[in-house]
């Protein structure tokens, strides 16, 4: 699947295109097919997102998995500070990045 | 000694205020009193080859020092910024002023409004940006800094001189 990501312009938070807006959870990401360029141009012009880009992802049983490790780090958070990630209660969650 | 120290007009005249020279909307980014040259600028090589031109256009890689011997027949130097990331033109302008050139230096191309204050300090006294500037942004940029840390091609007094008013003006 093709998914869209970027950083929220005002806060810098990592965000994923969920079909209607931007979510901080990668699992909300939807397949945008060929529509990536149009969505990115519109959202960037509306100052909702900074530096959006389209990436390959995979729908798995556990949710959406970006193809590249850099985007998995973005989706999860710093592996060396699990307390600051989106899954602070799960000590094994960082393994998903690798 | 005046404490507040806005950038005055560079050598070559022009008002020290933020109000550009008269001449209508077209000229509000020209900080000079003399009439604007209206002949087209030629390339550096062409200028050095022909004796009748008065305006030259410098590309970013051109060595401005080649103009040294012919400054007296120059009225306008356009310094082009192909990309704002290319800062060679800042040196070109300052070197021109250091060589004693008093005519117009115009910044053209990809010029960032946020840097025009520093361009003025290097000796630029007119601007023809690719993308038009917002007038408020220009005024804000030009009046932002109350002092300067170092001398440049303008007559702004560096902070160290303000700190040591007793020192001979040297």
């Amino acid at each position, binding site marked *: 699947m093709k998914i869209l990501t970027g950083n929220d312009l005002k806060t810098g*938070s990592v965000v994923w295109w969920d079909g209607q807006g931007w979510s901080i959870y990668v699992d909300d990401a939807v397949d945008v097919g060929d529509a990536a360029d149009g969505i990115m141009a519109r959202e960037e012009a509306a100052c909702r997102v900074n530096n959006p880009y389209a990436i390959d992802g995979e729908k798995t049983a556990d949710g959406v998995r970006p193809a590249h490790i850099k985007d998995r*780090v973005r989706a999860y958070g710093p592996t060396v500070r699990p307390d600051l990630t989106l899954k602070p209660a799960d000590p094994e969650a960082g393994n998903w990045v690798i | 000694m005046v404490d507040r120290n806005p950038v005055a007009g560079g050598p070559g005249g022009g008002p020290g205020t933020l109000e550009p020279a008269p001449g209508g909307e077209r000229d509000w980014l020209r900080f000079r009193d003399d009439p604007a040259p209206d002949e087209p600028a030629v390339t550096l090589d062409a200028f050095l080859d022909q004796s009748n031109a008065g305006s030259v256009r410098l590309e970013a890689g051109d060595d401005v020092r080649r103009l040294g011997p012919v400054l007296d027949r120059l009225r306008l130097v356009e310094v082009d910024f192909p990309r704002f*990331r290319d800062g060679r033109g*800042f040196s070109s302008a300052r070197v021109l002023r250091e060589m004693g050139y008093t005519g117009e230096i115009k910044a053209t191309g990809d010029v960032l409004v946020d840097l025009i204050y520093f361009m003025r300090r290097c000796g630029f006294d007119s601007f023809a940006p690719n993308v038009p500037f917002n007038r408020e942004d220009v005024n804000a940029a030009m009046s932002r800094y109350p002092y*300067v840390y170092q001398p440049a091609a303008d007559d702004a007094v560096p902070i160290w001189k303000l700190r040591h008013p007793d020192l001979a003006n040297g």
Partner: protein
Amino acid sequence: MYRYDKYDQAMVDARVEEFRDQARRRIEGHLTDDQFKPLRLKNGLYLQLHAYMLRVAIPYGTFDSRQMRKLAHIARTYDRGYGHFTTRQNIQYNWIKLEEAADLLGELATVEMHAIQTSGESVRNISADQYAGAAADEIIDPRPWCEMIRQMTTFMPEFSYLPRKFKIAVIASKVDRAALRWHDFALRIVKNDAGEIGFEVYAGGGMGRTPFIAFKIRDFLPTDQIFSYLQAVLRVWNRNARRDNIHKQRMKILVHELGEEEFARQVEEEFQHFLTLATDFPQAEYDRIAAYFAPPPFEQGLSDEIDRSDPEFALWVDRQTVAHKAPGYAIANISLKPIGGIPGDISADQMDLVADLAERYSFDEIRATHAQNLVLPHVRKQDLYAVWQALTEAGLADVNLDLVTDIIACPGLDYCSLANARSIPLAQKIAERFADRQRQQDLGELKIKISGCINACGHHHAGNIGILGVDKKGSESYQLLLGGSGDEETSQAKITGPGFDENGIVDAIERTVERYRAIREPGERFIDTYRRVGMDQFKEAIYG
């Protein structure tokens, strides 16, 4: 320490308002990301993997308790309760919001701090010997010149858009604690035969993807001509540097392409020209600045005795303290390298604690080091025990200065948008492997430096053991380098051979270190042994 006068304060305040305006224009859509990027970078604001990151300048690594407490406050209020000391004596925050950044800068300005030119294509924060003003071996305190150069290079009109970043370092001793020759422009303060103070000048160094060690461009530059000389160097570079490939625009590349001799000739010609412009700062301004760096009122007649009856404390003293120029005083190093921790990271509470200790025991001075540690520069020897106890309680009393676990590491792929591989988990694994105290002590000085990509923020080129993280078909891989140094015998590390995965590289380092132990001669540090025997011995140990 230097204090702002109304001029310095006005300049920093103006910068905050300028940035506030620029951020507003970006948020309102008047500036594109492409236009805004160079503006935010000149204020140290990056967009990293998880958020904006702000790098705050600590000029020449010197700051005080008031500033440290403000840094702690910023960590709590604008970030997530911690900060990260960098390899250029700065501090950076990882979770900054653009909409709050101007307020943050405004708070910094209230304690005479800023983020000006901590990034972007400009003259960066100046680095210096972290022991300046305290070291027993220095000729003179280099910081007045650092401060003067800071002012000279702040908002330089002609160099508003340099080809690339430009890093300056200044030291005043034979021993180099600042990685001098890894800088674009470096000054070592020396005395000539007539007893005059001047600068030995180096140019064209730098790490990154094409490392070069700076060459000596001038044996002796009178100190009152430094601004002319600096402008000459910058102009020659600005005029000649390529602009077509961002990876080839650092000054080191120009020096390499022109050749040292031709580069020096052009600089000298431009220097003579600048001297005629009379732009140099006068002696009176140096004197004004130098007065702020007058030595603190050291007590006379203090004893040099230290009560070593607590063995843990004695270990700390032997490793973490360094000779001070004043009798009865010591320089105390604070490790930010706990085993299993994140190199350079410090919590807001720890910042407050260090601020308290500085105020109470170190004439209110703190230093940040390029090795990502902190220093209390002026501690009475009789106070060391109290300092150590407080540090111990705060988890800041590790005993590993310059040892195998005192690892420099960039933020790597855990934070940085440029990184190819993670650096911090590797630093943690290495530290855990060598955690045994006796083993560390036995191995002696051994500097490991880890970068998560070829930009080399983790100084891997200068590591006795360097590690470079690379992307190997989508997974992290690590190359091993040996023989680098950032000290007065500067050398560039060389790649040993094929790379490793995360566990493989830790094993390879252990084999390297064990080989050193087996073949070292008495008194030899790792780097000495490497220089004596060369790469092959180690290659054999690593790859069999």
